[in-house]
């Protein structure tokens, strides 16, 4: 059925199209462009603007029909060039311009505005409208990020459709009727959505603009390159744009495999953090006692190498630890993996601190995003797509609307819970039962099951998390797995984290075997001599600020960082890293797809790419990684023989999205990239620009004098607390009467250095709360807005929030308390790596 073809004629030429195709898409495919405004290929058609009218011959003669709305049919005769069509299109355009203000010169959309383009191409140039135009107050903020200019609006329903249909947050809607039809938010409720920036991207005129981009640049001054958002590992494809060596904005590219043109605001507005020079680390610096001073690269590198060497000499290679919790580029991750394994030769290495599951399980039978979304059953395990992989939430919503059956297994409800088929509670006392329930829910549809394996709940430790995944895979031998952890895919791919298959081929390399949690704990105990922190914040990895103060007395901290943070303030050696958009490279996403990273601006100050720093440290340590250019790194990976065997940049020349790895994975036939020629005019041309990948200038590393390492010394194992593999996990002890299990879950806007550095997003960071269903509130005697004390490994004061949504999805006998939001304080509630019991006390007001 889906492959059925129909024959029809376009302007008397025969064409064939797949049954069920929208006429406008079939026309596009035939190279016939019909002007349009309201149609968006990723949203349902509404046929409102009437710009796309064409003549269609039907049983009752020829009539004008909206080509965006009707499907192709066998024998259909379509006319796109007739006098009637031209007259109608011309008429609609004139009507749209009648009340449109003449402020193109000061409009952000000017120069890339489909309405302006249409007017130039088809308008008469002279207006017949001599009446007074409609007036509205302009522009009005409808959120901290979005401004609305109603006079420019052409009532195309794109923004409102996005909010309702795609995001599921109908916080903007039309108000009024007829000529007074306008976009409105409700009274004092802002359009606060994780996805608000998309409406500005899809608005075909300058009615919706983003505050960060307002008046930043004119479209013709912008240069752009194709890149991949690095705020999470979903790998949303973007057009990264800059003007005069400053990043100006990011737009979503419609990748059929990944983001369907959408971005979340956290990703879209990262450019504002990159541009916040005050909170960027621009130069290397060394701390001497309590004072820190900027130094030259060679001095800083020498100090770093000295520290490493001294640690190795004095305490063995395993006393050098390396951690990271963010997404570094693939090249940087690999260079550091090689440095750790072959040069430093330490096993205390974890580049995927957030990963709380056995990395090898993710790679055995991997699923792509599209495979997950077309599974017979999709099982979400310990993952909150909206807060962790935001655009995945949008894709899941669309897939569920189209019929995807989802089973959710989470400790705490998510925003998908109300629309999934089965929501099954993960609770310590009923893990086996929960797995049974999943299996029962799958029934006999076992053929095409995909599991999204996440690491969401920090209270639900790695050991249990792994065990649940293992149990599920044992019961569902054919199931594919999609990685659901938002950071660390590159580290898993190159074996820069415990349990991941190793790809570094040099014999005698050292395999990572100490998890990030163990590294952090060990560092505090003084088990390490040198701790290297790769673009991460130690307070996000479980240290408190007080810990940081004493840490320096026990271990030399080397922080490579883009942004200033508590870690950079206390580190002995600080090395500036290039920010997003300042370096070229590539990355792999959760489905192990190789994606490009574009370079649009010069690195700030003396910031360098992480892989170069690794190469330089290697040579200072008397060894060589053999990396002078990015291509060297790539060649190494290409020949690695592991997951990434065959990797190369040449794929990018062929298509915008790189291939899935391992290359043996048969890629499902990918629908051609769908472009929305309205509203994102810059993006169509990225296709062409993208082909020039790797033409960017690569800064040659400076050569510095090194220290010779004693080659005879073999590493000695120091700590070996591996990430739990699940074999030896006991069921947790029962709870006392007043005890609960703590569920600690992340939010998209949890405090982090890049968020703090973002003037437009920092305000979104909110204090963590104890989130209760009204029923739980009643049981605990807590009301909305109360404050309470939570007593776990530490004692933390929190506000209380009652959420009706929880009543529907939290089991009435649930013994789990949910803390929403990761901060150093809430992380301090945890202890080790498994469920923690907490007690709660109400704090009485004065």
């Amino acid at each position: 059925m889906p492959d059925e073809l129909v024959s029809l004629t376009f302007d008397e030429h025969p064409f064939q199209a797949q049954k069920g195709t929208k006429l406008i898409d079939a026309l596009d495919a035939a190279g016939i462009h019909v002007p349009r405004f309201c149609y968006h290929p990723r949203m349902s058609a509404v046929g409102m603007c009437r710009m796309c009218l064409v003549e269609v011959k039907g049983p009752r003669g020829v009539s004008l029909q909206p080509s965006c709305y009707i499907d192709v049919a066998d024998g259909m005769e379509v006319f796109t060039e007739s006098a009637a069509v031209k007259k109608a299109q011309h008429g609609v355009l004139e009507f749209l311009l009648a009340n449109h203000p003449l402020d193109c010169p000061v409009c952000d959309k000017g120069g890339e505005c489909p309405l302006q383009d249409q007017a130039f191409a088809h308008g008469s140039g002279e207006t017949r409208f001599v009446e007074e135009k409609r007036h509205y107050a302009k522009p009005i903020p409808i959120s901290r990020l979005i401004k609305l200019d109603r006079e420019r609006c052409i009532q195309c329903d794109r923004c409102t459709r996005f909010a309702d249909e795609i995001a599921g947050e109908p916080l903007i809607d039309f108000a009024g009727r007829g000529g007074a039809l306008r976009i409105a938010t409700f009274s004092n409720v802002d359009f606060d959505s994780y996805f608000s920036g998309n409406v500005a991207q899809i608005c075909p005129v300058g009615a919706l603009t983003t505050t960060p981009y307002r008046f930043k640049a004119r479209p013709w001054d912008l240069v752009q390159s194709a890149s991949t958002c690095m705020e999470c590992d979903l790998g949303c494809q973007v057009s990264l744009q800059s003007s005069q060596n400053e990043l100006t904005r990011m737009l979503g590219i419609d990748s059929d495999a990944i983001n369907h043109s959408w971005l979340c605001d956290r990703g879209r507005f990262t450019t504002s953090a990159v541009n916040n020079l005050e909170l960027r680390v621009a130069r290397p610096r060394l701390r001497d006692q309590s004072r820190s001073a900027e130094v030259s690269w060679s001095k800083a590198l020498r100090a770093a190498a000295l520290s490493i060497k001294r640690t190795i000499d004095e305490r063995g290679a395993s006393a050098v630890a390396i951690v990271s919790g963010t997404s570094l580029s693939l090249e940087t991750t690999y260079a550091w993996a090689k440095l750790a394994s072959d040069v430093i030769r330490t096993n205390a290495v974890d580049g995927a601190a957030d990963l709380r599951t056995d990395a090898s399980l993710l790679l055995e039978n991997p699923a792509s995003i599209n495979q997950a979304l077309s599974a017979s059953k999709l099982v979400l395990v310990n993952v909150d797509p909206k807060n962790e992989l935001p655009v995945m939430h949008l894709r899941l919503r669309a897939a569920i609307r189209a019929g995807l059956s989802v089973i959710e297994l989470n400790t705490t409800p998510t925003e998908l819970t109300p629309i999934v088929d089965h929501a099954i509670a993960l609770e310590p006392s009923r893990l086996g039962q929960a797995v049974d329930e999943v299996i029962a829910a799958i029934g006999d549809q076992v053929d095409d099951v995909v599991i999204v394996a996440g690491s969401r709940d920090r209270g639900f430790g790695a050991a249990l998390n792994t065990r649940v995944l293992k149990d599920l895979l044992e019961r569902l031998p054919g199931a594919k797995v999609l990685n659901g952890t938002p950071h660390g895919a590159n580290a898993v791919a190159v074996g820069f984290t415990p349990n991941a298959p190793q790809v570094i081929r040099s014999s005698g390399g050292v395999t990572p075997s100490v998890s990030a949690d163990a590294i952090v704990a060990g560092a505090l105990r003084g088990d390490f001599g040198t701790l290297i922190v790769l673009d991460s914040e130690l307070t996000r990895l479980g240290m408190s600020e007080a810990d940081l103060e004493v840490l320096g007395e026990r271990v030399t901290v080397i922080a490579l960082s883009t942004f200033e943070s508590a870690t950079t303030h206390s580190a002995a050696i600080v090395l500036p890293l290039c920010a997003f958009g300042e370096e070229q490279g590539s990355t792999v996403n959760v489905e192990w797809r190789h994606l490009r990273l574009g370079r649009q601006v010069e690195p700030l100050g003396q910031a360098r790419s992480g892989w170069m720093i690794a190469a330089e440290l290697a040579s200072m340590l008397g060894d060589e990684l053999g990396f002078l250019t990015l291509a060297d790194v790539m060649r190494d990976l290409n020949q690695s023989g592991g997951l990434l065997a065959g990797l190369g940049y040449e794929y990018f020349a062929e298509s915008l999205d790189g291939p899935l790895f391992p290359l043996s994975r048969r890629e499902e036939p990918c629908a051609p990239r769908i472009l929305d020629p309205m509203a994102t005019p810059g993006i169509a041309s990225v296709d062409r620009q993208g082909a020039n990948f790797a033409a960017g200038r690569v800064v040659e590393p400076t050569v510095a004098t090194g220290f010779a390492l004693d080659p005879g010394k073999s590493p000695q194992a120091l700590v070996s607390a591996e990430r739990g593999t699940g074999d030896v996990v006991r069921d947790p002890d029962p709870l006392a009467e007043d005890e609960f299990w703590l569920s600690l879950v992340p939010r998209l806007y949890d405090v982090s250095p890049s968020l703090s550095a973002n003037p437009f997003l920092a305000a979104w960071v909110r204090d963590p709360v104890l989130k209760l269903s009204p029923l739980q509130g009643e049981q605990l005697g807590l009301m909305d807005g109360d404050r309470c004390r939570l007593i776990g490994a530490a004692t933390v004061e929190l506000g209380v929030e009652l959420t009706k949504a929880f009543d529907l999805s939290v089991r009435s006998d649930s013994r789990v308390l949910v803390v929403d939001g990761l901060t150093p304080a809430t992380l301090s509630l945890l202890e080790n790596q498994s469920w923690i019991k907490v007690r709660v006390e109400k704090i009485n007001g004065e």
Partner: protein
Amino acid sequence: MARFSDDMLSRAKELVSLYPDPRSATIPLCHLAQEQDGYVSDEAMAHIAELVGSSAAEVQGTASFYDMLKLEPVGRYVIGVCTNIACMLRGAYEVLEDAEKVLGIPVGGTTEDGLFTLEEVECIAHCDHAPAAQVNYRYFGPLDDESFRSLIARLRDGELDDEVPPHGTLIRVRREAPPAIPMTEIDRERAGDQE
């Protein structure tokens, strides 16, 4: 002004229960809010959104589409003078001008005592009594300057209180019927029919 009072809330819930889809009760609930406060306040819209399962922006989107639903306070009597074709042909604009003079307010205005709001409205289907007008959707006509003045006077004096309740009260006859027959029951009955 306010969310639904307890009494209104129970009526609201009853209305919601009548429909196969709660959202269908949106407009009836807006009328109910208007009966309570004379207009549909923000608080009421937020409350309606909760009751029917929409967002407040959607309730506002619906309410603001309709002329009868007032999102700002209006007078106790909303006077709508029809000026559409049949009335216009019989002198409606003269009546409207006169109304502005008599009430001392322009179209769209409300008298200082909060008693009258004046509107120019489209045909109210009373064209055989043209020129016609409505007061809180109770119809009068044919009107001339004299009968309009006397209408205002009678409203002021409370002579029409029985006929014309304050703005917002639309249907004073309440539904008296057994609870709605569950759709599933109807489904079964109809399925039987078809066999």
